[in-house]
C-alpha cells in the first residue's frame, strides 16, 4: 500500500458525506447572510419613509420623532443591520401596516397556499413534461415532436390571465367540471382545521373526504394552468437534453449490446439527462414559489404573490421585505436540494465532494 492510499484509507474512516455536508452548511450560512444583507439594503434604499408608513401622515412631530427613535433609525447603519438580523433570527419580521398583524403570521397564512399551488403545478409540469420531452426527442422531426413544440410555444406566448379567465369561463361557468375561484367552498372553510395550511394535505390528514375533493376541484384549474407553463419549459429542455444524450457514443454501445430500445431511452439516456434536468425543474419550482401574481389574482388565490403585490401597492415595507426574504430563502433551499440531488445522480460529482 502506498502512502497516498493510506491517507485515503484514513479519511475513509469518516464517511465522505460528513465533510461534504459541512462544506454545504458553510456555503448555506454565507448565502443566507448575504441574502439578509441584500433585503436589508433594499429596505434602506427605497424612497419610502418607514416612520411615515407606520404612523401615517397626520401624526404630530413628537410622535414621528418617538417612532423614529423606536425604529432605531438614528443608529449607524451596521448597527441597524445587526438589529435586523437579530430580529429575523428571532422570527420577528415586524408588523404589517396593511393587516396590523406580524408579517410572519401573514406569511404563514399565504405561503402554504402558494406552496400548495406550486407543488401541484410542478408535479404536473414534471410528470407530463418530462415524458413529453422524451417522446418528442425520440420521434424527432415527426408529428409528435411538432405537436409538443406547438404546445410549448402556446405555453410560452399565451398570457396566463387570458388562459385563466377563458378556463374559468369554459370549465367552471359553462361545463361546471371544476370549482370556481378560491381554495375551497365556504361550506367547508371553517370545518378544516389548520395544520399545514395546505388544504389538500389538511383535509387528507383529517380524513375529510368531501372537503378534500372540493379543494382538489378548486386547485385543478389554476394548478393545471401553472403546470402547463412549467410543462412548456420542462418538456423543451428535456427534449434538447435527451437529443444530446441520444447522440452520445455510449448509446451506440448499448445498442451494440442488444439492449431493448425502451431501456436505452429511459435507463441510459434519461438517466444522464436527469442530471441537468434537476436544475431546470428546481428553478421552475422556485419561479412558481415566488407566487404567480396573475394566476393568484384571477383565481382569488390568497398566496404569497398576491400578498407581496398588495403590500407593495401600499408601501408596506416590512411585509415586502419579509416576503422577499422568504422567496430568497426558498431559492437557496432549492439550490441546496438540487446540489444534493446532483451528487446522488452523478457519480462524477460524488467523487469530488
Amino acid at each position, binding site marked *: 500500500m502506498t502512502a497516498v492510499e493510506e491517507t485515503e484509507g484514513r479519511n475513509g474512516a469518516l464517511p465522505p458525506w460528513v465533510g461534504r455536508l459541512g462544506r454545504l452548511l458553510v456555503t448555506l450560512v454565507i448565502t443566507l447572510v448575504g441574502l439578509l444583507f441584500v433585503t436589508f439594503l433594499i429596505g434602506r434604499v427605497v424612497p419610502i419613509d418607514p416612520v411615515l408608513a407606520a404612523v401615517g401622515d397626520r401624526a404630530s412631530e413628537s410622535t414621528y420623532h418617538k417612532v423614529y427613535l423606536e425604529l432605531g433609525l438614528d443608529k449607524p447603519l451596521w448597527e441597524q443591520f445587526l438589529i435586523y438580523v437579530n430580529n429575523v433570527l428571532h422570527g420577528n419580521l415586524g408588523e404589517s401596516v396593511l393587516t396590523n398583524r406580524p408579517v410572519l403570521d401573514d406569511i404563514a397564512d399565504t405561503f402554504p397556499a402558494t406552496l400548495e399551488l406550486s407543488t401541484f403545478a410542478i408535479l404536473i409540469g414534471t410528470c407530463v413534461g418530462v415524458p413529453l420531452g422524451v417522446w418528442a426527442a425520440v420521434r424527432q422531426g415527426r408529428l409528435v415532436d411538432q405537436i409538443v413544440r406547438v404546445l410549448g410555444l402556446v405555453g410560452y406566448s399565451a398570457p396566463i390571465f387570458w388562459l385563466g379567465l377563458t378556463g374559468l369561463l369554459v370549465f367552471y361557468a359553462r361545463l361546471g367540471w371544476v370549482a370556481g375561484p378560491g381554495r375551497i367552498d365556504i361550506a367547508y372553510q371553517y370545518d378544516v382545521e389548520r395544520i399545514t395550511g395546505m388544504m389538500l394535505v389538511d383535509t387528507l390528514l383529517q380524513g375529510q373526504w368531501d372537503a378534500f375533493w372540493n379543494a382538489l376541484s378548486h386547485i385543478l384549474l389554476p394548478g393545471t394552468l401553472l403546470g402547463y407553463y412549467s410543462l412548456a419549459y420542462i418538456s423543451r429542455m428535456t427534449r434538447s437534453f435527451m437529443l444530446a444524450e441520444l447522440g*452520445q*457514443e*455510449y448509446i*451506440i*454501445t*448499448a*445498442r*451494440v*449490446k*442488444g*439492449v*431493448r*430500445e425502451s431501456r436505452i431511452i429511459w*435507463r*441510459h439516456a434519461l*438517466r*444522464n439527462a436527469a*442530471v441537468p434536468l434537476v436544475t431546470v425543474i428546481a428553478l421552475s419550482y422556485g419561479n412558481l414559489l415566488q407566487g404567480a401574481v396573475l394566476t393568484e389574482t384571477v383565481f382569488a388565490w390568497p398566496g404569497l404573490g398576491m400578498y407581496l403585490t398588495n403590500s407593495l401597492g401600499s408601501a408596506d415595507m416590512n411585509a415586502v421585505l419579509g416576503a422577499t426574504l422568504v422567496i430568497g430563502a426558498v431559492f437557496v433551499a432549492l439550490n441546496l436540494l438540487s446540489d444534493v440531488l446532483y451528487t446522488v*445522480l*452523478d*457519480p*462524477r460529482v460524488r*467523487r469530488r465532494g
Partner: protein
Amino acid sequence: MSGALLTVDNLRISFPTRQGRAEVVRGVSFTLGRERLGIVGESGSGKSQTGRAILGLTPPPGRAEADTLRFDGRDLRHATAADWRSLRGRRISMVMQDPKFSLNPVMSIGRQLMEAAARTASSRTEARAKALAMLEAVQIRDPERVFHAYPHELSGGMGQRVMIAMMLIPEPDLLIADEPTSALDVTVQIEVLRILDALVKERGMGLIFISHDLRLVSSFCDRVLVMYAGRVVEEVKASDLMQAKHPYTQGLFRCLPRIEGGTRPLPTLQRDAEWAR
C-alpha cells in the same frame, strides 16, 4: 459460400444533404470467414460506417443498401428491429473507439457488464459470475473493485479492456473493432491488442479490425482491405501488403517513417482524382 460467416456485396451508404444524397460508402464487397480482416483507410473513407452498417447502426437519416448482406445464412437487409436485437451482442459485437465516451458515465461498470451478460445467462448470479470472469480474462487485476467502479474512475487502458470484456461476454461469432486502440497511449495499445488478439484466437471468432494504422493492421490481421473515398481500392493478404499494387496504398507506405534507409523529409501523399472515381 458455405464457409463464409459474413458476405457483403455492393454495400452503399448514403446521407441526405441539400445537394441530394451523398454516398459515403460506394459499393463495398467482401466476404469473411472466421478470420481477421483489417480495414484501413483515412478518416472519411467510410470504414467506420461499413462496420456500423453490418450491425444495422447506420445513424438516421443515413441509409445503407446492399445487393447482399448475409450473416451466417441470414439476410440482414430486411432484418426487423427484433432481428437486429437478437443478433447484436450475441452474434455480432463491436468494440468502440474511446472508452471515455463509449461507456455510460452514470452507470457502474458492473451494471453495464450485466446488461451484456444477462442476454446469455439464466440468472443474475450466473451473469455476475460471467462478468467477473470476463474482467479477469482481460487481465484486470481486481475485478471486484472494477465491477463496482464508475467509468471515470478507470484509466483509458482499463476502460478499453472493460469494453472488450463487455463485448465478448455473450461470445459473439463476429467482433468488429472500430479503432479500438486509437484513443490509448502507445504502450497501452500493444497490451490491449495482445489481449484482444488472444481472446479472438482462443474463441475462434471472426474479427473486423478497423484502423487507420497500416502497420498495426498488417501485423495483426490475415487480410487487409484498403478503403479510399468510400471504395475498396485494394484487397491483399497482410503478408503481401508491401507488394500492394494500388498507388494509394503504395503512397501510404512511402509516407511511413523507417528507422534506417528512409527518405527525409517524408514524402507527401500525392492524391490522384482518378482514385476517387
